[in-house]
C-alpha cells in the first residue's frame, strides 16, 4: 500500500503538482491514473463515469511520459514520432505538426537522425515532444524537467500554458516549479497509517 485517503478533482484548464520524497507514491499515482495499476479502494472518475484499468476510453484521453524515454534507438526521431502517433490514433502524423513539435524543443535538426546517436538530454526532449504532436486533453508528466536546461524549461512551460489555456489538464510529479502556477498535493499527507501488509502479522 503506497497511499490512502487521497482524493482530488481536476477541472479543465488546471494544473496539479505532486510533491513528496521519492517512493512516496508520486509515480504510482500517475501510473494509476494512466491505468497501469489496479486500485485497491476508491474510484477514478471522468465527469460522472468511472474508468477502469485497460479501459480504451481512458487511454485515448491521456498522454503519459514516464522516466524512461520510449524511443526505438534504431529508428529516427521522425519515425519514432510517426509510430507513436499511429499507435495512438491509427493515422500518420502531419509533417507540419511534427515540425512544429520538434521546433518547440529545438530538435528540428535531429528529426531524421537515428535516436541511438542522441544524448540522454536529447532523448528526454524527444520524449517530451509527444505532448506537442499528440492532441490529448490530459497530460501525465513524471519528472518532466529532469536534465532540461533553462531554455528548454521555458519551452516546456510555454507548451504547458498553451495546453491549459486550451482547456487541457496536467498532472506533473516534480520537485522544481516550472513557473506555471497550479494546485499542489503533498503525498506525505496521505502515507498509509496501517499498511495492508500489517494484517499479515
Amino acid at each position, binding site marked *: 500500500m503506497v497511499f490512502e485517503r487521497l482524493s482530488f478533482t481536476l477541472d*479543465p484548464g488546471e494544473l496539479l503538482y505532486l510533491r513528496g520524497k521519492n517512493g512516496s507514491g508520486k509515480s504510482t499515482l500517475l*501510473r494509476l491514473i*494512466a*491505468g*497501469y*495499476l*489496479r486500485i485497491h479502494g476508491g474510484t477514478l472518475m*471522468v*465527469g460522472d463515469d468511472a474508468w477502469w*484499468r*485497460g479501459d*480504451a*476510453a481512458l*487511454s*485515448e*484521453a*491521456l498522454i*503519459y511520459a*514516464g*522516466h*524512461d*524515454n*520510449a*524511443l*526505438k*534507438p*534504431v*529508428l529516427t526521431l521522425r519515425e519514432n514520432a510517426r*509510430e*507513436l502517433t*499511429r*499507435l*495512438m*490514433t*491509427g*493515422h500518420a502524423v502531419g509533417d507540419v505538426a511534427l515540425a512544429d513539435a520538434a521546433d518547440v524543443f529545438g530538435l528540428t535538426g535531429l528529426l531524421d537522425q537515428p535516436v541511438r546517436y542522441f544524448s540522454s538530454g536529447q532523448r528526454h526532449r524527444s520524449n517530451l515532444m509527444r505532448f506537442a504532436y*499528440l*492532441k*490529448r*486533453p490530459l497530460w501525465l508528466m513524471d519528472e518532466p524537467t529532469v536534465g532540461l536546461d533553462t531554455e528548454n524549461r521555458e519551452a516546456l512551460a510555454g507548451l504547458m500554458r498553451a495546453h491549459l489555456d*486550451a*482547456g*487541457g*489538464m496536467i498532472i506533473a510529479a516534480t520537485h522544481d516549479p516550472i513557473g506555471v502556477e497550479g494546485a499542489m498535493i503533498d503525498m506525505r499527507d496521505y502515507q498509509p497509517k496501517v499498511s495492508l501488509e500489517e494484517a499479515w502479522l
Partner: protein
Amino acid sequence: MTMAPQSTQDTSLSGIFFGIVKRDVRLAWSQGGTGTMALSFFLIAVTLFPFGVGPEPQILARIAPGVIWVVALLACLISLDRLYQADFEDGSLDDLALSPLGLTGVAAAKILAHWVSTVLPLVVISPVLGMLMNLPDGAYGTLLISLLVGTPALSLIGSMGAALTVSVRRGGVLLSLLVLPLYVPTLIFAVGAVDATAGLVDPTQPLALLGAASLLALVIGPFVSAQALRLSLE
C-alpha cells in the same frame, strides 16, 4: 467542459494494428533484430544432424520431418524472449498498453509480426533443408502445409511465455521451460502429418488436429499475453 479528445472519433483500430505489425517486422529485420538470428540458427542446427546421425540417406529420410520441425520450433523459441522484453526495457511497453487497440490487440499484432518476420522465413527455407535431409519427394507438400498450419501456434503459445517472463532478467531459459511442454501437441501432430505422407497414408487427420491446436492457441494466446503483460506494468 472536458476538451473531448478529437482523435477518439476517427481512431482507426486497423490502422493501429497494422502499424504495430509493420513496425515490429521492420525492427525484427533491422539492427539487433531476431529475424536473421532465427533463420541462421535453423540452417545451422539442421545441418548438424547428419554429422551426428551419419549421412545414410535412409536414416536421414526417416528423421527428416522430426528434425526440421524440432529445430524450427527451437528457432522460433530463441527469437521469442525479445518479443516484449525490448519494449519493456525502453519503456515503449507503457505506450503500447495505452493504445486504444487494447493490450490484447497489441499482443495479437506483435504475434502476427513475429510470425511474419521470424517464422515465415523458416517455412520458406524448409524445402532446402528437406533436400539436405533427403526428405521423401511426396512429403514436401505436407511439410510446407504442416509448417504453415502449425507454426502460428508456436508464436501464439510462445508469446504467452514471453509475456510471462518479460520482467525476468535472462528470461530465455525460463521461457523455454514454460513453453516447450505446451508445444508438444503441435509437434506431435505436425510430424505425424508429414510421416503420414511419407508413409503414403492420408495426412488430413493429423493436419486437422494441428489446425485445431493452432486455433486454440489463437483463442488464448493474445488474451493471456495481455494479462501477463499487465502484470509487468504494475
